[in-house]
């Protein structure tokens, strides 16, 4: 007969509280929270600048540094989702330029209502995101190299088409287009909170972070994102539609780029053809500071937002202290290194496989 021992199966009376439970104390649990490092970092950076600069901690100062954090934050959250899903999008930065230019050119050169232009821009963004995702999932090539290709192509297109259609390297004249007032209200209005003027993008950023975090942690799709980034083959073997998940993530990133691009276009009413170029690395830096692993499968939307916040605070805090702006990049690089080192520890702990 088979060596089947007695009383092994689920007899509730044999269940006891596991005596090893104390090994996973609250501290270790906290340590595997991806956004913890970014939270500590944000508090430290805030304290550092707030202690030394009165402007920095005033309501007006806060509104000032929230502004760059907001548009960056929207992108960083989308890029974080994509990174958790195991991919990069190097074309995300230049895509904010593509979408902004599309809004301006369709509205001004083709004399359309701005909402039509914004709609066209959204379609362009969705197609670009789909193209990235489809190519990456179809070929199995690293997304790094595929999106580097689309990045360069878009950079060329942005310049080439803008020159071709406007004769210059700037698309202008958006303020006098029909529908501008309502578009301005949605994308670029300001409100007064505690005596400081806050741009509406800050609200969008908070909303976007909340929704992304909810989707990531509380929905099926969120579960699939973690799984696709953690181990794509394993995920597919248990029935996760890994390809569709990846494509949806690329489209989320391009949609965020559309939102930010539209915000830029409506705010400035004119768009430079090189808008957004170079920003893609900043998004990735913010996501990594926020606890995303470069290898995928781990990270947080709130963390990426905190990363963007650190970025915004540093960017404006340094001039407030009357330091040379060059220190900004040094600071950011140091934050990045610290974050990567911290993430490495987390991964070691979480993946300490004992085969």
């Amino acid at each position: 007969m088979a060596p089947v021992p007695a009383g092994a199966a689920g007899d509730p009376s044999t269940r006891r509280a596991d005596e090893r439970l104390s090994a996973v104390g609250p501290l270790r649990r906290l340590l595997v929270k991806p956004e913890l490092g970014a939270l500590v970092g944000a508090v430290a950076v805030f304290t550092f600048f707030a202690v030394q600069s009165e402007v920095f901690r005033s309501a007006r100062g806060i509104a000032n540094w929230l502004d760059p954090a907001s548009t960056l934050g929207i992108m960083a959250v989308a890029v974080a989702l994509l990174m958790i899903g195991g991919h990069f999008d190097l074309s995300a930065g230049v895509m904010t330029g593509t979408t902004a230019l599309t809004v301006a050119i369709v509205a001004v050169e083709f004399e359309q209502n701005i909402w039509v232009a914004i709609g066209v821009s959204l379609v362009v963004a969705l197609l670009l995101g789909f193209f990235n995702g489809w190519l990456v999932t179809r070929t199995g090539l690293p997304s790094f190299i595929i999106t580097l290709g689309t990045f360069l192509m878009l950079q060329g297109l942005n310049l080439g088409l803008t020159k071709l259609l406007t004769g210059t390297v700037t698309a202008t004249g958006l303020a006098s287009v029909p529908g501008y007032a309502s578009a301005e209200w949605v994308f670029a209005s300001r409100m007064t909170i505690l005596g400081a003027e806050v741009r509406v993008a800050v609200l969008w950023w908070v909303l976007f972070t909340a929704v992304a975090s909810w989707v990531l942690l509380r929905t099926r799709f969120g579960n699939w994102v973690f799984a696709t980034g953690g181990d794509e083959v394993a995920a597919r073997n248990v029935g996760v539609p890994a390809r569709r998940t990846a494509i949806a993530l690329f489209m989320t990133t391009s949609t965020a780029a559309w939102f930010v691009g539209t915000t830029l276009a409506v705010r400035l009413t004119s768009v430079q053809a090189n808008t957004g170029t170079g920003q893609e690395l900043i998004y990735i830096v913010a996501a990594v500071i926020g606890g995303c692993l470069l290898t995928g499968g781990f990270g947080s939307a709130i963390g990426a937002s905190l990363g963007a916040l650190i970025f915004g605070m540093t960017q404006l805090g340094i001039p407030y202290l009357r330091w040379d702006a060059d220190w900004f990049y040094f600071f950011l690089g140091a934050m990045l290194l610290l974050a990567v080192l911290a993430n490495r520890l987390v991964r070691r702990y979480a993946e300490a496989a004992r085969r």
Partner: protein
Amino acid sequence: MTIPDAGEPLLELRDVGKDYGSVIALDGISTTVRAGEVTCVLGDNGAGKSTLIKILSGVHRADRGRLLLDGRPADFGSPREALDAGIATVYQDLAMIPLMAIWRNFFLGAEPTRGWGPFRRFDAARAKDVTRRELSAMGIDIRDPDQPVGTLSGGERQSVAIARAVHFGARVLILDEPTSALGVKQAGVVLRYVAQARDRGVGVVLITHNPHHAYPVGDRFLVLNRGRSLGEFAKADVSRDELTRLMAGGAELDQLAHELERPST
């Protein structure tokens, strides 16, 4: 060697073959999985056992031959399609995501939801509850369902994967070396699960290297060697010793026993 019809054929393979590039991993394999029966697949390392079950579970498509589900030709394009047909698999590499919590892994790809429309969400409370219940029924006391799977021991991880497949395998349960990392007690529990599933009318495919596990629970034995079938035997037609010899390549085992004997000085 005639095999009696013990039940409905749920899954049937006819002359199935599969190549990886120039490697012929499987060729000319025919077998049936019947409701309420345990089919054991035996063979050396690299014999093609995992490849066979990956065809059954929709991971690979067969390059040759046919797969029948309930007597009708089936073509699983993805594991999802096989799962939807009630075929659940414990893969040899377990198919778990190390950085994800146990309960998230347990329901991965089949998450229970609540709420409606855009507010439909992953029912985490239920998922944690079921995970804890299913695992303790296997005699595994997980410390914390929020623990990442990567921090579990190999045997604990295997138990989670098995509990998951048993939970979702409504019609066919496929287990690829499910007991390799398990202690005596947990291996016994797994074999009981196999027997219980069989008694519920589930068709089970069990891959194991251990004839002491295979023989008591198996109804038929498919022996593979280098991608080909050495035959399919009903339990009545083969003894445990014969099976052990077949698995180990017959005469080679006698040779080994001879070599391992202490030299009599």
